[in-house]
């Protein structure tokens, strides 16, 4: 029995390392992730929050005074505006709420500049009106206007406009109702559209929480926000952005982090992580844009993949002799009794049939027609001890059934080495891009200080070069086989 528990524990640990933030990412209602001096910060309900040096390993340590619920944070100029609700959302029966904002020059609690300004109220709700002023969400749009949404299931989600210089409510600005039946709202802006995201479902019920994140969109920041089938969010509409996963339940409290054009992340919490005693955890997922709608992608799972260039659709492969597979040339003969021959199942080419003839040392890579051959099949696995980057662990990429690893080489080129050693040039950052394709970047390149990505310089020739989201040479599809 003890052995079984141990095995289950080991399996659970392996699962945790590949699928969720590592460290101690325990939080509820995380604020939008903010970067400060190379570290990432998020604040949660009740005060405090998480810090990560790399975006993958999170620990407690962020400092936010005031207690209360559901903060949000945004960097404006060289300062951070942090908002939260001083109240808790009517669980005790009343719905008087109060939203405040405050500034800080830094989010690093160890910095001598770390000091919050006095909180100022920007919105409120009275005891029994159709709103409960909690769950602030902040957006600065492309015109420099600062919007604040707030509210919960009790009544309406509301919007006010703030002064980006002071963080205070714009004089004369009146709250506008924009949605019902949700909480943890926030607006994001993309390609001329304002998107209102809110969390539906049941909060705070652990593994039985049905929390899920939905959205509507509008050309006007004050709405109406309409979903994908034409429903107004004031009528309860909303298109799904992310919901439960197999072992994670209760997706809520969305935040958007733009790494660079084409690389975006969504932050949220899962109310319950089955691999962590059902605790509420921070999650970071790739944020995709599909037909004008935001949608969360998935973390890369350990497994066997073909790696296909978006440039031509060719598969990344070892530069070794092509070995013809069994089955022969059938030509076009359907006569002479061939129609009557019984079908037999032909085996695909196996690694042991070909690998003995591969060179023992480094082997270059290229791209070619995918033919399901051993030199084209890759295993991608997280390397838990290697740390990670915002939203993902570093991976090793090896030929399936071997330890031969893809690596960055001198001159910003590529090679495979016979044995994976864990060296930085053998570790790969894999980001799903906003269009659903993938960017693969080595952690380090010998003799090169630039961050470069796997790049198709010709149809059949991969190399390392600068990332540009508008260039298909930088993009790859990962397809499990």
């Amino acid at each position: 029995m003890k052995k079984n528990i141990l095995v289950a524990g080991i399996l659970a640990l392996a699962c945790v390392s590949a699928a969720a933030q590592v460290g101690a990412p325990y939080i509820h209602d995380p604020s939008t992730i903010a970067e400060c001096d190379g570290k990432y910060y998020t604040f949660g309900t009740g005060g405090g929050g998480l810090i990560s040096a790399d975006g993958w390993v999170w620990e407690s340590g962020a400092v936010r005074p005031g207690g209360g619920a559901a903060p949000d944070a945004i960097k404006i100029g060289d300062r951070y505006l942090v908002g939260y609700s001083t109240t808790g959302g009517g669980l005790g029966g009343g719905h008087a709420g109060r939203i405040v904002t405050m500034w800080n020059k830094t989010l690093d609690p160890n910095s001598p500049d770390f000091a919050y300004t006095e909180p100022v109220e920007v919105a409120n709700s009275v005891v029994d009106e159709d709103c409960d002023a909690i769950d602030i969400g902040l957006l600065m749009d492309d015109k420099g206007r600062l919007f604040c949404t707030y509210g919960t299931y009790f009544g309406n989600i509301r919007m006010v406009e703030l002064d980006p210089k002071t963080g205070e409510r714009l004089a004369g600005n009146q709250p506008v109702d924009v949605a019902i039946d949700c909480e943890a709202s926030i607006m994001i802006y993309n390609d001329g559209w304002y998107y209102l995201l809110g969390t539906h479902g049941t909060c705070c019920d652990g593994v039985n929480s049905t929390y899920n994140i939905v959205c509507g969109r509008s050309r006007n920041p004050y709405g109406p926000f309409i979903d994908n089938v034409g429903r107004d969010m004031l009528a309860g509409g909303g298109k799904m952005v992310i919901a439960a996963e197999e072992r994670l339940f209760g997706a809520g409290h969305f935040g958007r982090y733009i790494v660079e054009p084409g690389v975006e992340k969504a932050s949220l919490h899962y109310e319950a992580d089955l691999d962590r005693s059902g605790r509420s955890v921070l999650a970071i997922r790739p944020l995709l844009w599909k037909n004008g709608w935001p949608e969360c992608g998935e973390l890369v799972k350990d497994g066997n993949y073909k790696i296909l260039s978006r440039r031509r659709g060719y598969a990344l492969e070892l530069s070794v002799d092509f070995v013809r597979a069994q089955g022969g040339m059938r030509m076009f003969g359907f006569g002479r009794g061939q129609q009557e021959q019984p079908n037999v199942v032909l085996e695909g080419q196996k690694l042991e049939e070909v690998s003995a003839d591969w060179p023992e040392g480094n082997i270059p890579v290229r791209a070619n027609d995918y033919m399901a051959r051993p030199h084209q099949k890759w295993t991608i696995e997280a390397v838990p001890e290697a740390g990670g980057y915002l939203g993902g662990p570093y991976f090793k990429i090896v030929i399936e059934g071997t330890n031969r690893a893809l690596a960055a080489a001198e001159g910003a080129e590529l090679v495979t080495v016979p044995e994976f050693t864990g060296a930085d040039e053998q570790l790969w950052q894999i980001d799903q891009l906003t269009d659903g394709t993938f960017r693969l970047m080595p952690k380090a390149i010998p003799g090169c200080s630039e961050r470069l990505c796997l790049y198709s310089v010709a149809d059949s020739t991969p190399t390392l070069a600068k990332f540009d989201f508008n260039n298909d040479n930088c993009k790859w599809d990962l397809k499990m086989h």
Partner: protein
Amino acid sequence: MTQFIKTLSVAVGLAVLASAIPARAQVYADSSTQLDKYLVPATTAVATPNDQGFLGRWLLLDPISKPNRSNTVFTDSYIREAFAVPYFKGQLGDVLPKDGSKVKVMVEYQPPVDLSGGRPMMRFPQEPVVYEKKEKKLQWHAFDSKRFNVKLFRFATNLTEDRYGVIFWAVTVVNCEEDIPNVRLAVGSNSASMWWVNGEEAVVLSGDRRMVMDDCASPRLTLKKGRNVIWGAVINGPGMSDFCARFIDEAGNPVKNITLTTK
């Protein structure tokens, strides 16, 4: 009215799409196959790459007979071995052969192809064919290509008796006024090929290849100030044979501040 708006929208959409594609003239079908449609004798005028950077001035050697009934045999090992054979003096050297000069090459002799019997690859002999070894006198020709690619097949069919199962050798000189670092030789070929820049292997195109611009590229290299000798060897079994080659920079743009000579 609605239909008119739809039609107008489609027309505007197509116009916008078309504006993003480089303009070029319609290519009308033309069944002629004479050499000067593809290649003309190189002139004494300074040659430069075409507007896309493709190298058009080459010395081509008459095809060397190398019988292969299929292009699927062209693995990396096979073509390295095939191109490592010393066929002629000065192969891969810095001194280029003279236009019109001839070399003697020992070949596996194939009789001229009988085109009346259909595609040659479809007529499989029952037993492996043993080819007679013969010494053939092959000539170098300096050409300017009228197209972005060098149509080896039409060179062969117009000037020689070989067309399938052959190796073509090509060489040119790229002249630079100053060092041009971080460029790549980008090649497409039908079928497999290997390319060398200043005596160093630059890029290998193995397998049963069709010619595609920028199919394979060399690692980053430097075109040095002065002469840079570019050698290429293309091997083909049945079917069309041609190649296209250009230098591209880090951004993938063609390198055009160079001149081409065959000396």
